[in-house]
Structures are given as C-alpha cells and as structure tokens.
C-alpha cells in the first residue's frame, strides 16, 4: 500500500511538472489550429 501511495504521489508530481512544462511550450488551441492571419477569441473568453 505504501508503494502504491508513493507511486500515485509521484504520478501527480510528474503531471504537475508536465503542466508547467506544457504551459511553456504548448500553444493554446485557438492559436495552434488557426493560421497566422486569423484572429480568434480565446476559448471561453468571448471578445478576449
């Protein structure tokens, strides 16, 4: 059980690290899937 809890904690830690890592290099969907000439509102933020 102890190993399982350590594994789950480690999994969450790596996932949190992935969150910060992806924030640095991953483009948001409204940018990634639009061409440079298009202007789209950010998802969930009309007019943003």
């Amino acid at each position, binding site marked *: 059980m102890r190993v399982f809890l350590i594994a*789950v904690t480690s*999994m969450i830690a*790596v996932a949190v690290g992935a969150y910060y890592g992806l924030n640095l290099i991953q483009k948001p969907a409204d940018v990634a899937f639009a061409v*440079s000439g298009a202007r789209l509102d950010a998802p969930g933020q009309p007019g943003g």
Partner: protein
Amino acid sequence: MFKAALIALLLAAAIPTAHAQAPSRQEAPASGFNPTATEVKEQDLLNALSKVEGRISIPDTRAATLIQPAGQTWRDYRRGPLLWITAAIVLGMMALLTLFYLIRGRIRIEGGRGTRTVLRFGAFERFMHWVTAASWCVLAVSGLNIVAGSRVLLPLIGQDAFSTVSGWLKYSHNFLAFPFTSGVVLMLLVWVRHNIPNRMDLEWFRQGGGLFGHRHPHSRKFNGGQKAVFWIVVLGGGALAATGFTLMFPFYITDVTGMQLAQIAHGGVSLLMIGAMLGHIYIGSVGMEGALDAMNSGQVDRKWAAAHHDLWLAEVDAKSTPSGHPAE
C-alpha cells in the same frame, strides 16, 4: 444551386488543377468562373482531391488549404463507427470476463494459502507498475469520455457538470501522459530481459495458461500471458505516446491529415489496450487468489508461486542463502 455556384467560384479561383483532374467537365471561361457550373459536383471534387488549396503569398503555408475533404471522413468515423467499436470492445470484454467468472469462478490456490511467502516483486518494480497503472486508468477513462462522453455521460449529469468534468479529464489526459510514458520506459528497461518470448510460452498458450483446469504449465518469472501483456503495454504504450504527443503539439510534426491518422491510430490502439488491460486487471485481482499480493506487498504465497511460476521459484530457491531466506 446557389451552393453549387458558390463552391464553383471558390474552387475555380483557388485550384486551377481541379479542372485538369476532371477532363470530362465543361471548360470554364477565361475568367475562371462558370456561372452555369452544371458540371461542378461538390462531392466529385472533394473525392478527387486530398486538399482543396489555393495560392498564397504569406509565409504561413497552412493558409493555402481551403478544404480538407478527408476531415469529413474522419469526423464521420469519430461520430459513428468509433462509438460502436468502443462499446463492442469495452462492454464485450466486460461481458466475457463476467461469463468466465461465472463458469470458472475464482482460481484458488490449491489446498489453500500456506504460511510461507516469497518476494516476487521488489519495491521499485511495484512502484513503476503502479505509476503506469494509475496513469493508464485515468488516461483510459478520460479518453473514453472524449470518444463517448457526450453520448453516455452528458445525458446523465447535464451540460454544466459534463463541461466541468470533461475539462478536468482533458487536462488529466494531457498531463498524465508523461508519468504513463515514464512508467512504460521504466518497465521496458527493468523487465525486458524476463519477457523475451520462447518455446515455453507456446506451450503455456497451448495449455490455456492453466485457466481451465488444475494443471499449470511451467513458467519462469513471467508466463506467456504476462509476456503478452508486457509487450502490449510496451508497444501499445509506445504507439500511444507517439501519436498522443503528435496530437498534443499540432502541426509541429505533421499536417492535419497526419494528425487525423494519428488520432485514429491513438483511438484504435487505446481500445485494444483497454480490452487487454481489463483482462489483466481481472486476472490480477478477483480472478485469481493470491495474484494481487505480488503487486501489493510484493510477497506471494509459495504455493501460488509453485503453481504459476514453478521454474522462477526454483531459481529463487537456488539463490537463497543456507538459512532459507531469499537472497533478494
């Protein structure tokens, strides 16, 4: 009629090659626009071209693509066949396992549990197993929600709750891909030497793994079924990582057609893995007495080990110290 004329205008302006690929069609005027457009059939053009593209002068070449007809096929596949394939694999596997349980019952340790145990998996082996397994469970559930959530979960919990749940599951799907991939790599490095297929595995499969009788085929640390699970996880997990990271970074690695193919492959491999892992989870928990101990405490009953991994137990005993304690 208006729609056909509009498409004719669009295509005539954008794709001079379109007419070259349809020689039977009426020649368009020099202006490039045929107002009658009787010969222009939208579906014919979409079928004939992988992409409807124009000429542009801006640096972003993706802007040249006006229509990508394969996207319609991809969307239809996601909305139709993929849902049915998902239901068939998930529900079918659960039904099969339930039927197996009703017929065979729980596979017990012959003569009941003994008093002596042997270390089957060390702490690090169990750690990497649970990192991979826990990540995979969330990835599987969140992936199934992407495919079927709007049909299954949305009617049950309503739009607001579904939106919140799906948002969190989508984030989980992205972020837990990293511990899952790490776990698969660790398992490959640590366990590959025990999972090289050999003739003994064929005999194990020939005897049905001992699932249907009281005789158990010979086996070392991993039997034929466990080796199959190992390679499904390693190869399937590798394929999921490759296709998943392709989708996570749109247009970095491939174009939109490549991403559609990656999504189809990602979904297909995922479903195969879900089917296989349901079987693995069943036999490692309720299906077989004593099996879960191997990944829980790491200590398994010696009688269980003698029945299912006799050659491995003999190897461990041979390495044991004179006092009888395992060398591990």
